């Protein structure tokens, strides 16, 4: 995997026997125990571990929920209610799974913004970033399909609206969109066949995500972690072994994250959901105000900002697809935004834009909301297409530190005895 030589020494006969046949213990030791990790990683770096944990939570709770859920038009909604009322611990498992999806997105958005801020997508980590965007896309698809399974009013109409996005292809080739949508539905409208296939794919996708996560970590372990300074590791003085330094740090962050997760599951499990999804799906009545789950709201606002159906769909797709090109759109020689005095303002304006689009996505697209939605949508794309290429060329970065270790020791002067790399 990496250039550094393996330091694994099998300690027993069985370990030696296995190591010669399947060196799985060697890989774990080299990649997750002694793996040299920059000594200055802050708490924004703990979300990778949190995300891995959340994926495991979703798969574990999902598998047990699948033992009770019935994916048919007639029984889906009732089986979810049965899980809530009759199944032992069903309420806990379902709330954990539903709130877990939200927490998963909280973590993935923080993780993505961290990568954007510290330039973790820049060479030589482009493939790490691209695989990350792929995971985000798969998560979006999985969450959407999972939400449909409840078969409440919001589920049903979200599926209707989102699958109908493909009918916009009728504007390019008449009939193509309709053919495609009826293929997705397995009928002439969203119905039983649609629910059944979304269920099958919702079960499959998390395992595809797990596979891409392995590739994501593999690609990360080739160059190693980026760090808050964005400068490369120069010597072993700049790194500490992953264990115990980052297992402890990631573990502490995970405990804090799970506290928040548990607080929502136990005290406000429906806070992030929409009450209309407790009304069984009714194909004859559209709810007065269809909104997606909170984590899709910025994309929904972009879709609605464009008055043309096909162009709206193209803008929606582009808003995610554009992330794939970030490694080449950003022309800056410096990775970390910490040393980019001008770009920093544009970056935080982008964060504000994403939050604002999220708010606008929850409001009816009328009057000022629509105008603001268009302005923020324009900035969303301008950030990638104008700010990244141009500011990177024009800006004069502030002075970079000589090494990763230098600012670490400066900021901890007076408590130098704690600097671990020197002890080690």
């Amino acid at each position, binding site marked *: 995997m990496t250039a550094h030589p393996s330091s694994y020494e099998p300690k027993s006969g069985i370990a030696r026997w296995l190591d010669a046949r399947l060196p799985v213990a060697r890989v774990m030791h080299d990649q997750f125990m002694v793996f040299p990790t920059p000594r200055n990683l802050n708490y924004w770096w703990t979300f990778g571990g949190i995300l891995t944990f959340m994926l495991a939570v979703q798969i574990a709770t999902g598998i047990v929920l699948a033992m009770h859920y019935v994916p048919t038009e007639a029984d889906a909604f009732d089986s979810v209610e049965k899980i809530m009322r009759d199944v032992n611990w069903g309420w806990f498992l379902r709330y954990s799974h539903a709130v877990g999806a939200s927490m998963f997105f909280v973590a993935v958005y923080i993780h993505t913004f961290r990568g954007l801020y510290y330039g973790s997508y820049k060479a030589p980590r482009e493939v790490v970033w691209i695989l990350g965007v792929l995971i985000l896309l798969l998560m979006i698809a999985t969450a959407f399909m999972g939400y449909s399974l409840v078969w409440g009013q919001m589920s049903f109409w979200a599926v*209707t*609206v989102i699958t109908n996005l493909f009918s916009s292809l*009728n504007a390019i080739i008449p009939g193509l969109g309709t053919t495609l949508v*009826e293929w997705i539905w397995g*009928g*002439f*409208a969203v119905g039983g066949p649609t629910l059944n296939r979304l269920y099958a794919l919702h079960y499959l996708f998390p395992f595809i995500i797990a596979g891409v996560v392995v590739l994501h970590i593999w690609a990360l372990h080739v160059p190693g972690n980026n760090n808050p300074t964005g400068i490369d590791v120069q010597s072993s003085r700049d790194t500490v072994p992953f264990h115990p330094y980052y297992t402890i740090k990631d573990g502490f962050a995970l405990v804090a994250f799970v506290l928040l997760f548990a607080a929502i599951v136990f005290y406000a499990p429906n806070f992030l959901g929409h009450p209309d999804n407790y009304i069984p799906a009714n194909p*004859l009545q559209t709810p007065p105000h*269809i909104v997606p789950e909170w984590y899709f709201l910025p994309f929904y606002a972009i879709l609605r900002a464009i008055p043309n*159906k096909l162009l709206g769909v193209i803008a929606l797709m582009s808003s995610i697809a554009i992330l794939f090109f970030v490694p080449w759109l950003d022309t800056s020689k410096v990775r970390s935004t910490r040393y980019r005095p001008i770009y920093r303002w544009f970056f935080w304006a982008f964060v504000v834009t994403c939050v604002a689009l999220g708010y606008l996505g929850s409001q009816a697209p009328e009057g000022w909301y629509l105008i603001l939605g268009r302005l923020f949508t324009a900035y969303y794309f301008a950030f990638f297409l104008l700010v990244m290429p141009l500011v990177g060329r024009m800006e004069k970065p502030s002075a970079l530190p000589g090494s990763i270790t230098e600012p670490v020791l400066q900021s901890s002067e007076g408590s130098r005895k704690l600097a671990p790399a020197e002890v080690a």
Partner: protein
Amino acid sequence: MASPDIPVNSPAEDDELTRRDVMLIVAGGFAAVGGTMALWPLLDQMNPDASTLSLATTEVDVSHVEPGQALTVMWRGKPIFIRHRTDEEIAKAKDAPVDDLPDPLARNANLPDSALASDDNRAAKDREPWLVMIGVCTHLGCIPKGQAVGDYRGEYGGWFCPCHGSQYDTAGRVRIGPAPENLAIPPYKFVSDQKIKIG
């Protein structure tokens, strides 16, 4: 194509097609075509199945629908809007100049695709008060309001889609909003004065 490490059957120039090359191309081509064809059942199984297709016609009794009233029935899992229009509603629909409509086509499955969206081409044949349409907004598939008494029907008095604000007139033609097409008209006919056969 041939790997230089593998001895070939007949002495040949590097750029000459050998027996081994031909076999490789034929075998590879066979596998590619066969593999692609084997994918088709995996994809086509998702299309509407026989039981879904067999629900293709519905008969509706409309004898109790008075002028100004509307009826919603299901056909192929979609709502069908049947409206018995008043004289005033017909007059409003006839007043609209077809050239100014966002979608100038009738979208009527009983007429040629090129038929224009005049009120005659939208209403039932020889039964002008009757309008029969698929009640699915052509934007993103919501069900427009306007069938029930007291529903908001938009500025043109037809239907109003609550999702993204599309508005349809009293002939079901889109007048305002993101919807790209007029409400679609399914294949149907009056089998008697009281009965409509849809599909």
